[in-house]
């Protein structure tokens, strides 16, 4: 089985982003970029399936500008067999990303697609579900446990009520939650080895993906600030303050 893994590059999760004063976007120049944390988990899970002999090949897929190659090399250094780079300078929204994946699925015929449950930049939480709909295959979102046997995936999902388990016939789309696994660190020799692994470059325009129905972002704003709080010196003072506000 072949596994396709979505591997998005985002502003690092530790960066406190700033909105541009003119409301046209957020400041990304000179800001540290990293793999979307959920995508690292997706790649780790795919690699573990390969190590168990369930998958033969793990392919990382990135959609973005020319310099995304360096990011994809990180995925190769972590252990992916090869990478596909769909090149576009434009921002790609979830529906478009799902359509790109659908095109790649037609070509690659994977047994499984693993994506992160959301990207920490747009926080959309849509691409996996949209892809499963376009592909007309099962989806198992927010996965915290995955077992594959007899042509089906048994997936434990983190839902509001607790932990739900579902069975999905393969091929299927899985999206990862934080507790699925602990991604491995990249080792120096693997970075060297990754340099000789193949990256297929595909021009976005050559895929013939329809993009006209994207959402338009007209303004960016900083969130409303909470007013400065007060410090109290002991438990009695805290209780008094809460009683005064009618909260206790």
């Amino acid at each position, binding site marked *: 089985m072949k596994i396709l893994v979505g591997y998005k590059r985002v502003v690092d999760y*530790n960066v406190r982003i700033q909105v541009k004063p003119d409301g046209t976007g957020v400041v990304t120049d000179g800001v540290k970029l990293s793999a979307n944390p959920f995508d690292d988990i997706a790649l780790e899970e795919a690699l573990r399936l390969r190590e168990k002999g369930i998958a033969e090949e793990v392919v990382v897929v990135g959609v973005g500008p020319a310099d995304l190659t360096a990011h994809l090399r990180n995925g190769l250094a972590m252990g992916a067999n090869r990478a596909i780079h769909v090149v576009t300078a434009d921002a790609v929204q979830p529906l478009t990303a799902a359509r790109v994946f659908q095109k790649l699925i037609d070509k690659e015929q994977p047994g499984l697609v693993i994506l992160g449950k959301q990207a*920490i930049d747009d926080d959309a939480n849509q691409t996996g579900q949209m892809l499963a709909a376009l592909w007309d295959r099962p989806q198992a979102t927010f996965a915290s446990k995955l077992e594959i046997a007899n042509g089906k995936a048994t997936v434990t999902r983190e839902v509001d009520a*607790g932990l739900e388990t579902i069975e999905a016939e393969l091929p299927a789309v899985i999206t990862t939650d934080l507790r699925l696994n602990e991604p491995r660190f990249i080792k120096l020799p693997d970075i060297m080895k990754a340099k000789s692994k193949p990256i297929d470059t595909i021009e976005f325009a050559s895929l013939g993906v329809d993009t006209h129905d994207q959402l338009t972002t007209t303004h960016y704003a900083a969130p409303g600030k909470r007013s400065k709080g007060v410090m109290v010196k*002991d438990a009695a003072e805290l209780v008094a303050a809460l009683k005064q506000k009618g909260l206790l």
Partner: protein
Amino acid sequence: MSKILVIAEHLDGKLNSSTARAVSAAAAVKPEAIDVLVLSDNVGTIAAEAAKIDGVSRVLTVARAENAHPLAAVLAPQIAKAAAGYSHVFAPSTTFGKDVAPRVAALLGVAQVSDVMSVEGSHTFKRPIYAGNAIITVEADAAHAVVATIRTASWPAAAQGGQSAPIEALSLDVSLPSHTRFVELKQGKSDRPDLQSASKVVSGGRGVGSKENFDIIYKFADKIGAAVGASRAAVDAGYVPNELQVGQTGKIIAPELYMAIGISGAIQHLTGIKDAGTIVAINKDAEAPIFEIADIGLVGDLFKLIPELEQAIG
């Protein structure tokens, strides 16, 4: 004019309060009709509860055995079919809505607006990105239906009981896939208030130290009638089950009172509580980021302070 279809969320035959919150957001669009769609194997009680929500025009029901559990692959084709003639399809931005709504949007061939926090116009919405550190205004194409999930913490639950909307059974000619099957749901049974709708929440973090120590948090929450939440660190360490996690990837909540105990306040946690009425932080580290957004802060050892708080409350 707009006509909005709201997808009802329910569990164990009861309507979830997130549905009434999605109805509030629908009302903000000022539509000519708000219909609620109930998909279940047994729609009776759920539909009756939905009919009582103020502002609801009709409740539409689809009772099929396949709808016994909320499987997105099974529900989405039915919702997409039922959406014909509607300008908007809204679902709550809970794990239920997040799972099913994008599948509906893709079937309809439209983009989705996730986590709507305010309605600026029939096709213009505000939503948070970057863990709530930026708020964007987005416009959806007016030529297509708008599929959106509603950030429940931003909207009050619409009142109930003023009326009772008519309930109509819908018959949809849709063949459903059998490739996805429900196996089981393990619920953390609790008599405490529900985390997402509670007016008071007491949360514990890594500072609580162990699963056993978390009893002090449960006991204190019970004393003040609060729901219990947790940081990711506390869930990862196994102190509490995952459904208690508050934050960017857990639950986004807006209680009147939020007490963060032994929680440092990572960006990802703060996202989940920014809309709380009053935030109280108790932490032994005076430099912890949680104090930057706390309305009332108290520096000290939680194991000493919680018993003192209980005593002071009386």
